[in-house]
């Protein structure tokens, strides 16, 4: 039955998307032959500011509640209920916007473009989860983020992702973060929003390709827990680092770990770390040499990444609409392409000489040369750091939720016999401190 269930879900999701895209179809207005005057198109009024602040208030409330449920009450059911609330509230009601994940770009833009003033609500959506994470770990991911919630809701049959694959796939999130910041900072695009895979579901319609991407992620999410959160989420990358520093953290056991191994497979996101033993003697020597080699490799990876990013400057610059327009206009003028685009037509109606456009685009291209090098250097830094981290063996005596990877979803609590004991005795949980 399980196999048929998955096949059915696959088909249903795909066709549901198809239908959603069909719903966007429209046809031209009738050709009236009378003196009927078509009404002018009206745009809906922007949402009142007050609702933006209400949303920010709800976010903060949800974050604090999530922290309470995950650390003090230790209730998976309550966390799940809050997760569903967040899915409805921040996903379907607020249509996935303002999105905390996407707010990274607003912050990047405001840092590099003095003409852009970031709205206070966006700043709250960006900063509040970070502040809460600094105190309580990634409770935002576990119970408040609608993107995480929609994936968590479809997770039926989790399978374990091999460590080597997890390590390499996680690089994507760093690359995505770097690219998102690069393109936002240089005013090219908000790619994290453009390629938000689930916003189409929240809005019951959207770009076909993005809907397909979202459907694919949800299909993968049936078996692989939260694939977007683990391997792509750029905000998650920042939260990982903040969570490492959190004052309090989620623990599997409410008090002492008895190493019963019952929780070993409890986490569908591969965030539980088993106790480790010291390096065996022979391995220790090899590990030291390896570490030395990787330390030497580290600056080369950073430099190589920067060089690669610099080489890709033109490809990056093409993400900027002004550069794309300049390239299009040039291709049209040199006769290398046929036809015009709406953008090139609009440019020509301005009467501006194309020389000006080329100069502007070349200026932007030069900024991308610097930005590309920084981006490439960042990617090299992350890769080098990751390799170093994998070359170092950390001592652990208990089964622990990895502080960076744990979403604070609370699934592991019920696997711990000490938790059952605690609940039976009605004791309060001891919140682990750093």
């Amino acid at each position: 039955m399980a196999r048929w269930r998955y096949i059915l879900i696959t088909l249903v999701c795909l066709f549901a998307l198809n239908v959603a895209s069909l719903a966007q179809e429209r046809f031209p207005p009738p050709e009236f032959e009378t003196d009927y005057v078509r009404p002018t198109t009206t745009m809906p009024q922007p949402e009142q500011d007050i609702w933006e602040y209400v949303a920010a208030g709800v976010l903060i409330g949800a974050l604090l509640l999530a922290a309470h449920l995950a650390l003090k009450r230790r209730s998976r059911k309550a966390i799940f209920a809050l997760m569903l609330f967040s899915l409805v509230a921040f996903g379907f009601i607020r249509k996935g916007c303002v999105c905390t994940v996407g707010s990274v770009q607003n912050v990047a833009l405001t840092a590099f473009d003095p003409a852009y003033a970031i709205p206070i609500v966006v700043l709250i959506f960006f900063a509040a989860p970070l502040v809460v994470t600094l105190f309580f770990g990634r409770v935002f991911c576990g119970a408040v983020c609608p993107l995480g919630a929609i994936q968590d809701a479809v997770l039926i049959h989790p399978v374990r992702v091999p460590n080597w694959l997890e390590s390499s796939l996680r690089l994507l999130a760093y690359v995505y973060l770097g690219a998102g910041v690069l393109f936002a900072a240089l005013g090219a695009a908000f790619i994290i929003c453009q390629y938000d895979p689930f916003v189409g579901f929240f809005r019951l319609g959207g770009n076909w390709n993005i809907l397909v991407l979202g459907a694919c992620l949800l299909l993968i999410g049936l078996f692989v827990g939260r694939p977007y959160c683990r391997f792509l989420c750029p905000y998650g990358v920042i939260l990982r680092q903040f969570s490492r520093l959190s004052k309090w953290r989620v623990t599997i056991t409410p008090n002492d770990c008895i190493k019963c191994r019952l929780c070993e497979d409890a986490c569908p996101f591969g965030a539980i770390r088993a106790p480790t033993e010291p390096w065996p003697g022979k391995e220790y020597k090899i590990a030291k040499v390896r570490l030395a080699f990787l330390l030497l490799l580290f600056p080369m990876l950073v430099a190589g990444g920067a060089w690669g990013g610099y080489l890709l400057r033109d490809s990056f610059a093409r993400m900027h609409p002004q550069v794309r327009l300049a390239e299009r206009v040039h291709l049209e003028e040199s006769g290398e392409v046929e036809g015009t685009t709406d953008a090139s037509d609009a440019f020509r109606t301005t009467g501006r000489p194309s020389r000006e456009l080329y100069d502007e685009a070349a200026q932007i291209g030069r900024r991308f040369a610097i930005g590309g090098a920084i981006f490439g250097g960042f990617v090299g830094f992350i890769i080098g750091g990751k390799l170093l981290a994998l070359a170092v063996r950390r001592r652990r005596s208990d089964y622990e939720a990895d502080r960076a990877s744990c979403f604070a979803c609370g699934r592991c609590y019920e696997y711990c016999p000490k938790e059952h004991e605690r609940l039976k005795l009605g004791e309060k949980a001891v919140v682990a401190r750093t």
Partner: protein
Amino acid sequence: MNETTKQPDTPRSSVALQTARNTAKVAGAFALIFLGLLVANFIGTAVIGPRRENKMAAMRALLREDPTDEKLLADIRQLDLRIRRDRLWRLDFARKSSYALLGSVALFLAVGKLAGVLERQGPRPGHVADRSAEQIAESRHARWGVAAGVLVLATAGALLLGLQGPLAFVKAEDSGPPYATMEQKNHQWHRFRGPGGGGVSSLTNVPTAWNGESGAGILWKTAVPLPGKNSPVVWGKRVFLSGATEEKREVFCFDADSGQLLWRGDVPARAAVAEAEIEVMEETGYSASTTATDGRRIYAIFATGDIAAFDFNGRRLWHKNLGIPESMYGYASSLDTYQDRVIVQYDQADAEAGKSRLYALNGLSGDVVWEAKREVPNSWSSPIVVEVEGRVQIVTLADPWLIGYDAATGTELWRAEVASGDVAPSPIYAGGLVMAIEPYSRMTAVKPTGQGNITETHVAWQSSDLAPDICCPASDGRYVYVLDGGGLLLCSNIADGTKVYEHELRDNFMASPSVVGDKLYLLSEEGVMHIAQLGPEYQEVAKCELGEACFASPAFADGRIYIRGEKNLYCVGGGRP
């Protein structure tokens, strides 16, 4: 995970589990039903919809042919209503069904999840072994995993580099502005009568012997699809012409080496033009104006007031109508270019009507960069763009004013009252003087350096020896050559306008004389090219017959002459220079 031993399968037959499973089955069945309905709806939309749209398009086409067919009109309305009703119904159906489908899927997921929880077996871990070796191996694999990730990223970057390449416009940064400079134009034949509109070329390798009937000296000959009195324009390996009838207007581009027609660019009629009755003289035709190029684009204007720009690949960049010109014999002024602007002398109606303009249009968009109002009636002469003492001027001639404009802004610099009547010959600039002809009356030489009305102060000389009605003058800087329609050639001193010689050619002429190297080229209506030595006396060098009537002035290029006959375009000269 591998070391964890699971309990043997002991299926729970609890009511909750069974209920969850059965509900999942029902929800799945509903999902399938809604899915089927949506697929059917989708097929209906994708197949039936376009069929009806095509039928509608065909019926509309029929109605355009016969707008009085009331029955067809009623059928169209009926079909239109059906299409709209059907599409609205299908959209509504798709929306409702998708909600139902999503609900079914949500229920299926919820009870499936519940069933999964109820089915779940508790872990039963076995013996705790030393996992050091396994953890070391995991770390090693993870490092290789990261290395593989690096490889994938590097490959993706290399592919991106290889596929996209550098930004093309950055390379173009050093290739100069998006138009040819005046220096570049001086080496081409970019407008009527070449650079400066004076019919002058410094080339010395232009042919002096050919015969159209035998084909001797003719590199190629290609039929021109539509008639026109305009002259060839040459830029590099492209030769441009335009042609038009009452119904059609086109621009033609020929390969300079082979004569192959590379492309035909259609200039459609605006609705007002299509409905208007435009009267032109047969001698003028609908396409008397010669095209012009700025080295990037070719511009053409027609007797209907339609003006269009094409790139060198034949893609129409823009097209507009300047208003149907009120021209007694039909609009005939040729275009010129300044930077990336196309210059249009649009003289029409009476001077009192105030309709005459000089336009500078943006070559990229067709937008008016500047326009100058002109107090002149319709004329048939063409503007010239010339550099005088470091300043680029546009000089125009019409009854009664010879006017110099600043090319950059359109500001009038000077004017001289030198002509009257129906002015067709264009002015020329040579030896520091602008020569202007008042048909059948006089030729006046003006120093184009003053400000305001310079009639009294800057006229260098006037001559009444010969003043043709159509042909423009030509000058080598020492002598001015004037040719009238009846074949009388007059040579005068440029310094003072005194007559040097007269010579009767005994042919009829509409094409203007050309000064090429040290020779004078005079193309008669009968297609005979009279070639003479420049100088104080007429010395015939050759007479070459084309065998076809010619009304347009020829174009000169490196080792070649391009001549438009009544029906064919000829290239006289050798192969690839």
